[in-house]
């Protein structure tokens, strides 16, 4: 069937392939996620990434070819970060009232996540550029790339680490919070958004409106604190 092969080669080389593969896979996987009662392990991002990665590796399609189409989804991360102002605005009264507690918790949690990642990584003998790419992993992927660049890490690796972190949080938060006896939806959502940014917030939103709103606040705070403080701390650690 040479015609089919030629058709595939043609289709796979147009941006249409990457865009269609991303949307179609996500829609299918999300339907399965809904069908499975939104179980944490059925996370739609995890399985979309796995499915598309397998297709690309199996068909020997290079990532840039895929990204030529997928970039149309990817660029929306920018306006999505800007849009985070919306949930912050909606909760502005609560933010003002609980502001000090929330910022303190965001600072402590963000520092614990980044600090423990770098410390554990150094302990396990990971190279310096990988450590610098690990530090901003609790900040949402597009911003983590910018921070990693300033720290001297690898932006693309930082983005992958951020997405992995988001998946780990979205998959395991329920069990961790239940084990720790944390019951407040606000606290659960805020902790999930702090450590696991957008993917954690997306998961929190699917489970409870309160948890989702607090996860959105945490995500926004982590973006602001991470991009302001991490380059400063990195600069200070690197020494004069």
């Amino acid at each position: 069937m040479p015609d089919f092969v030629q058709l595939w080669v043609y289709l796979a080389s147009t941006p249409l392939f990457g865009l269609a593969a991303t949307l179609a896979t996500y829609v299918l996987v999300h339907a399965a996620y809904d069908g499975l009662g939104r179980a944490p392990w059925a996370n739609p991002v995890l399985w979309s990434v796995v499915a598309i990665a397998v297709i690309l590796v199996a068909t020997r399609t290079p990532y840039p070819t895929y990204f030529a189409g997928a970039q149309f989804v990817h660029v929306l991360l920018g306006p999505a970060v800007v849009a985070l102002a919306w949930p912050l605005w909606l909760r502005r009264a609560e933010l003002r009232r609980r502001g000090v507690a929330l910022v303190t918790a965001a600072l402590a949690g963000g520092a614990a996540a980044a600090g423990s990642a770098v410390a554990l990584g150094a302990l396990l003998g990971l190279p310096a550029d990988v450590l610098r790419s690990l530090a901003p992993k609790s900040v949402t992927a597009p911003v983590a790339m910018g921070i990693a660049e300033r720290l001297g890490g690898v932006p693309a690796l930082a983005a992958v680490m951020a997405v992995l972190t988001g998946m780990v949080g979205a998959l395991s938060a329920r069990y961790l919070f239940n084990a720790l006896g944390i019951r407040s939806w606000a606290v659960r959502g805020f902790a999930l958004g702090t450590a696991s940014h957008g993917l954690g917030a997306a998961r929190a939103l699917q489970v409870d409106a309160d948890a989702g709103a607090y996860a959105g606040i945490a995500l926004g705070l982590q973006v602001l604190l991470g991009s302001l403080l991490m380059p400063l701390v990195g600069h200070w650690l690197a020494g004069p």
Partner: protein
Amino acid sequence: MNLLRGLALLLLLQAAGESLTHAFDLPLPGPVIGLVLLLIALRSAFVRATVVDAAEGLLAHLSLLFVPVGVGVITHLDVLASYGLRLMAVVVLSTWIGMAVTAWVLARLLGAAAPEEGRGA
């Protein structure tokens, strides 16, 4: 139409943020400056009406937007092959530590204020 107007406004704010970051060499990424600008602009009822549909639409499908970056994992299969297990251990443990510390600190600071119950998320 409102969706397009909102998206246009979000993109313009991001562009304004990128310009400010480059012009003044700010430590914040462009979209973050855009977030701050929007937070200020939301005082206007016109801006709120313009941006609401696009903002809610984008945030409702936030997880889809991470898929292209996530697939980028295939370009780092060599790093994963050499450090995969160690990286996974670091990512899992530090994420749990981050969540536990945040939850602990926030729960202490908020006290036993609200008796809400949750077993999900």
